[in-house]
């Protein structure tokens, strides 16, 4: 029995969890958990502040990585075997449809959640100093999510995939000068074919996930270094507490001076960086507002994880991922539609290729990236930033309306057809 205890102790190397020291060490000494602080503010755990959207997005990414690796075992990235492998997943592989369903729904879910997370961060003004650059990284993560979803869309090599990517990559080619080149580089040719499938595969399973992981690490690291999440907006009215430890951010107090009294004292690296002695970093009032990460933060994250996992599982059990006919370059569906999250773009392109396909999306991305630097208003209170909120809401609504119109209101020949009208002969 002693041996087992010794082995266990050699693994965890901490005091029992009944002690505060043990709870702290659980976080400190564990490489996976130490992205958390040992203690978190109660207000940061409030559901109505963050809706845990960042967590859910990350958990969806974990589901995608796990199911994606298993799917890779059954997949060959060349036409037409790619399509046959989809059929084998559907009909022969044990739990194949469930697996593919989880990957598909988690992918759609991630696009949705990453967008909602962005909205939350905007509406709570959490991109403001010192978090400006983390917002920029967040925008990159949004673009990477779209890129991953777009490259994954082609892999089943069915009509849906083929024509969505054909339409999607055509939109890209409207960019002046580089557009055609970019498209050719992405597709490895002038049309979607074998070369495109291999390229999309490599991007989907290696390049983009690697970039995603790297950016995610930076994103999380910066959240931690900025002292955790932003303050909930309902707490903004309360008197400002003692300054938070914001490592890396310019200190608001005078830097430490080597005074006579302290000339004999040695300072730790943390103290030099933060500019104040460590025992002063947390005020007693603040201390009262915090709890140990274990179990308070962890149990909440675990519940969020399980809600995400069970939700995706339930979806996959009842709804199978779609699979249409084998890709057929000679047979264009009418209308041919891009993946849903690009249908807003396609809708814009249908009005003007140059404006809708190049200028508008480029402006959108640039505007998103620039938000923290354009918005000079230091206040995070909604009442102080009505203009910003109105503008962003307009941006969200326009995007949603365009996507809804592109998805449900466009029929053959991109004609305006409400979803409740059945087009006779449209399928023929």
């Amino acid at each position: 029995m002693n041996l087992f205890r010794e082995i266990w102790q050699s693994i965890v190397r901490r005091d029992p969890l009944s002690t505060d020291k043990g709870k702290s060490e659980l976080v400190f000494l564990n490489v996976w958990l130490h992205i958390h602080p040992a203690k978190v503010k109660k207000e940061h755990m409030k559901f109505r502040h963050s809706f845990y959207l960042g967590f859910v997005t990350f958990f969806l990414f974990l589901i995608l990585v796990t199911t994606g690796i298993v799917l890779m075992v059954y997949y060959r990235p060349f036409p037409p075997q790619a399509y046959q492998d989809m059929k084998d997943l559907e009909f022969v592989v044990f739990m194949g449809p469930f697996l593919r369903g989880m990957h598909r729904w988690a992918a759609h879910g991630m696009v949705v959640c990453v967008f909602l997370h962005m909205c939350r961060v905007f509406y709570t003004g959490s991109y403001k100093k010192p978090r400006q650059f983390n917002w920029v990284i967040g925008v990159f993560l949004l673009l990477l999510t779209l890129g991953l979803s777009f490259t994954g869309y082609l892999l089943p090599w069915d009509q849906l995939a083929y024509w969505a990517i054909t339409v999607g990559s055509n939109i890209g080619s409207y960019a002046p000068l580089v557009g055609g080149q970019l498209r050719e580089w992405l597709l490895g040719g002038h049309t979607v074919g074998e070369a495109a499938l291999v390229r999309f595969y490599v991007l989907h399973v290696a390049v983009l996930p690697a970039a995603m992981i790297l950016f995610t690490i930076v994103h999380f690291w910066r959240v931690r270094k900025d002292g955790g999440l932003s303050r909930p907006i309902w707490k903004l009215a309360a008197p400002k507490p003692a300054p938070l430890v914001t490592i890396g951010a310019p200190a608001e107090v005078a830097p430490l001076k080597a005074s006579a009294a302290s000339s004999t004292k040695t300072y730790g690296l943390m103290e030099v960086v933060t500019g104040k002695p460590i025992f002063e970093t947390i005020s007693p009032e603040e201390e009262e507002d915090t709890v140990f990460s274990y179990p308070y933060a962890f149990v909440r994250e675990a519940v969020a994880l399980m809600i995400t996992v069970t939700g995706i599982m339930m979806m996959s059990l009842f709804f199978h991922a779609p699979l249409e006919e084998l890709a057929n370059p000679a047979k264009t569906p009418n209308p041919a539609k891009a993946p849903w999250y690009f249908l807003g773009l396609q809708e814009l392109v249908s009005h003007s290729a140059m404006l809708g396909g190049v200028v508008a999306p480029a402006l959108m991305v640039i505007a998103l990236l620039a938000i923290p630097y354009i918005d000079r208003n230091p206040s995070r209170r909604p009442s102080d930033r009505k203009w910003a909120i109105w503008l962003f809401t307009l941006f969200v609504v326009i995007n949603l309306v365009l996507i809804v119109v592109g998805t449900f209101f466009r029929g053959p020949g991109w004609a305006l057809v409400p979803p409740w009208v059945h087009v006779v002969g449209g399928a023929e």
Partner: protein
Amino acid sequence: MERRLQQTFFALSLLALALIVAAAWQANTPSWKTYQHNYHQLEAQGEPNAITKAAVLATPPEIHQFMLTGLQRVDRCTTCHLGVEDPTMKNAPEPFRYHANLGPHIPSKFGCTICHGGQGLATDVNGAHGKVDFWPNPLLSKDYIRASCGRCHKEGEVPDVPELTEGRHLFETQGCRGCHKLNGVGGSIGPDLTGEGANRRAPDWLERHFLTPSAVSTGSAMPNFHFTKEQARALTYYMLSLTSEEMGSYYSSVRLIPGPEYGRQLFVEKNCIACHNIGGVGAKTGPDLAGVTKAHSAEWLDEQLVNPELVYPGSSMPAYDLEANARKALLAFLSTATAEDAQLILSRKTRALTPEDVAIEAGRQDFARFGCVGCHGTELQGGVPNPNAQGGEVPSLLHVSDDYTKDEVIALIRNGRAPPLDDAKGPTPPLYMPAWKTVLSDEDIHRIADYLWSKQQKKAKDAW
């Protein structure tokens, strides 16, 4: 709060576990396992030996499949249709019944879907029978299944499937190519029909379409050819057989079934009777062909057809460019041919043609083969409705020489034209004269013009 959260976490974990179990259960109980279980019970019924019986019943469930690389398909049909190759299952209920009359079409070489249609990869009933969304190739009904013979046997006659021969004949004589392309040759007014059988596997639609094109395809420019029911069915068979899929060499080697009927056709076409006789009936330049298949081995005769000079140095017989199966067909005919056959062939022969006749005849054949007859009629009478074109129909060609010179007509065929409008503000007429210069050689076009000129009827000058 904390207690509640921990309970929630625990409950959700249980739910996740339950969902995994449910998914595994769903995956582990496919309908094909039930079918296999029932089949093994059926097998065990007549089994007297208890040990064998137990062994049969204990057969582990497994997916059966034919990997058909030459046909680029995998057929898993026999996962449920287990008795297909077992004659003792002759009277078994479906899906276990024995497949009689397969002939040389053994499942391990041909699978099932090449003839029957359906989705070979699928392992559930609806999916496998192709009666699901996004599978363009549903199971063919019994009425049309023989159309599939034409997917491999693309030329010559197929025994027991006269519809295919008839359909092919109608296609080549009724002018379908005037509007439709097939394997790269034909007009572009209607859709390309190469691979039509793979794109539109809907026999009902096709058949109704041939009877009245506008009934199933509103606004179709296709004229009503007033086909009979039999003709519509024959064309439907032919359409269903048109697939552009690539087949392995094994399957494409049987494009022609080397039967005696096809041999007779070749015998007439190649004009063998001009030199040879059968039992004394015919020309005497070459040897009598009666009993020739008994006098020589098949290999010898085959070589004789490929390269006569190799067998008989100085032979005056031309080397005919016939493919292997055509040579086999010719020999099959010769093995049964009698003097009566020769008599019949001779009696149908027309007089020798002059070079001019030959040119005009070639023009007539081009006129039919490239589909001009589809709109202008087999007798140049025209008359196919073409709303809002001048006269409301495709013009007759019997009087072109009144309005045009031969060179003008040649230019018209080469470059095509849109028909002059009846009402300048009305809709564009559906039919137009395509430009033929990319399809037809100058020689072809001149021959067609010669043919037209040979048919001109002079209008009475003072008709009015």
